[in-house]
C-alpha cells in the first residue's frame, strides 16, 4: 500500500477549497504551491507578511527586483490591484481576522487543533517568523503536510510533542492520504484515497479518526 499524493497533488486539493475573492496567506515552502492550482474562474488575493497584497508568479531569472519579495525572500511580481503596506498593517490584517485562509506546513497537528511547525527542539538556531501570528486571526487555518514523517511516524497525534506554534488553531488538514477536519477536539475524516482502507489510514494516524456522515474519495488529477 504505497499510494499517496505528491506534494503538488496535496496543494491542488487545498486550492479547491479557496473561494473566488478570498484573501489568503500561504506559508513558506510546500504551502506556496497552492497558488499554482487555483481553479479556473477563481481569483484569490495572496498576502505576504512583508507587506504585499496580490503578488503573483516569480519573475524570469535575471529580472528580479529585490525590493519585491515574499516572506520566503523570493522575488515575486505584482498583479493588477496590488498594494504595499508596512509590517504593523500587515499583521493587523493577520491578527485582526481579515484573512480568509492561512495555509501552513506542519511537523505535528493534534486532535485538539494544536499545531507544531516552528521548532524541532532545543538544538540549532530557533526561528519563528510570522507563523505564531498567522495561526491566530485567519478565519480558516489549514495545514498541508505528508500524512506521516520521513520515518513513517504519524504527524497527526493526540497531543503534539514538539514546541507549539499555537493552541487549538487548525481547522482542516490536507495530507498525502486524506482530508481531515478538526472539530470538537477530534479528527473528523472527510476524504481518503479510495485505495486505502479505513484501518490502513487509522494505522498511520496517531489519534482516532471520527466519521460524521460519509467519507468521500480523495480524487486528485495527475500533476
Amino acid at each position: 500500500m504505497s499510494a499517496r499524493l505528491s506534494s503538488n497533488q496535496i496543494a491542488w486539493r487545498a486550492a479547491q477549497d479557496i473561494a473566488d475573492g478570498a484573501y489568503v496567506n500561504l506559508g513558506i515552502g510546500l504551502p506556496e504551491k497552492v497558488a499554482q492550482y487555483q481553479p479556473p474562474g477563481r481569483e484569490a488575493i495572496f498576502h505576504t507578511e512583508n507587506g504585499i497584497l496580490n503578488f503573483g508568479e516569480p519573475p524570469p531569472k535575471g529580472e528580479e527586483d529585490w525590493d519585491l519579495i515574499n516572506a520566503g525572500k523570493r522575488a515575486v511580481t505584482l498583479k493588477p490591484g496590488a498594494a504595499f503596506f508596512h509590517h504593523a498593517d500587515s499583521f493587523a490584517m493577520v491578527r485582526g481576522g481579515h484573512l480568509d485562509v492561512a495555509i501552513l506546513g506542519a511537523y505535528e497537528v493534534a486532535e485538539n487543533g494544536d499545531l507544531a511547525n516552528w521548532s524541532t527542539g532545543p538544538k540549532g538556531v530557533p526561528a519563528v517568523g510570522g507563523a505564531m501570528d498567522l495561526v491566530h486571526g485567519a478565519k480558516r487555518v489549514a495545514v498541508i503536510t505528508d500524512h506521516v514523517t520521513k520515518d513513517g511516524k504519524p504527524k497527526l497525534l493526540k497531543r503534539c510533542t514538539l514546541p507549539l506554534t499555537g493552541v487549538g488553531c487548525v481547522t482542516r488538514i490536507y495530507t498525502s492520504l486524506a482530508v481531515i477536519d478538526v472539530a470538537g477536539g477530534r479528527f473528523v475524516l472527510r476524504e481518503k484515497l479510495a485505495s486505502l482502507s479505513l484501518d490502513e489510514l487509522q494505522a498511520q494516524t496517531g489519534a482516532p479518526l471520527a466519521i460524521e456522515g460519509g467519507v468521500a474519495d480523495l480524487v486528485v488529477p495527475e500533476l
Partner: protein
Amino acid sequence: MDKRVASLADAVSTIEDGMTVMIGGFGGAGAPIELIHALIDRYRATGHPGGLTVINNNAGNGHVGLAALIEAGMVRKLVCSFPRSADPVVFTELYLGGKIELELVPQGTLAERIRAGGAGIPAFYTPTSFGTDLAKGKPVAEFDGRSYVQERWLKADVALVKAETADTHGNLTFRAAARNFNPLMCMAAAETVVQARRVVEAGAIDPETVVTPGIFVQKVLEVPDPAQEEDLNLAHARYPLGG
C-alpha cells in the same frame, strides 16, 4: 528646517557603546547597507560603538550589512523573528558558541512592539504565542473568552532606515516591499537616521503620498545608488565593499 547631514560618518555619529539600534529591512529589501557599513567603519577606526542591541527582523545574510555588523563583534544582543537566511553562518556560529544573545519574537509581535514604542503604548495584549514557549513568563489575560499574552513596547536610541525619497523636513516615501519595518522604526527611536535614494526640497513630495511624516525623522542623507543585499550576496561580496 533642513535635516540633511553631510556624510555617512555624520549620519551615524551619535551611536554609542551599549545603545539599542533598530535597523530597517526584511531580508535585503529596505536594509540600509551604507549606514550599517558606515557604523562598522567607525568601529574599525575607533573601537566604538560596541555592545549594541540590534532590532531587525532577521540576523543578516552573507558577510555584508547586518551580518557584517555582527561579524565585526559590535552586537551583544539581537532581537528578531527569523535569524535564518540563505547564508546565516555569521550569526549561527556566534549564537551556537554562546557569544551573542537572541530574543526571538514572533514577527507580528515584533512589528506591534515597535509600533507601540513609537505610539507611547507601554504594553498590549495579543493572541500570538499564547500557550507556546515564547509566552513563558509573560502575563496572560482573558478578554471576551479568549486568552491573550501581554507584550511590551520596544524603543531604540537610534533607528537606521532606508527610504526611496526624503525631503529636507524628513518626510519619506518607500519603494515596494522595502517599506516593511522602516516606518515603524522611524516612530520608535529617539533619533531616526534615513538614507534615501533621493533627497528633495520640502514641497517636492505630494503630501498625499507621504508614508512617514517628518516629525519621526531627525537626519537625512542622500545615497543615490544604494547597494542591495541580495545583489551583494549573489556576487559573494564582503564588507568592506570594494576593499
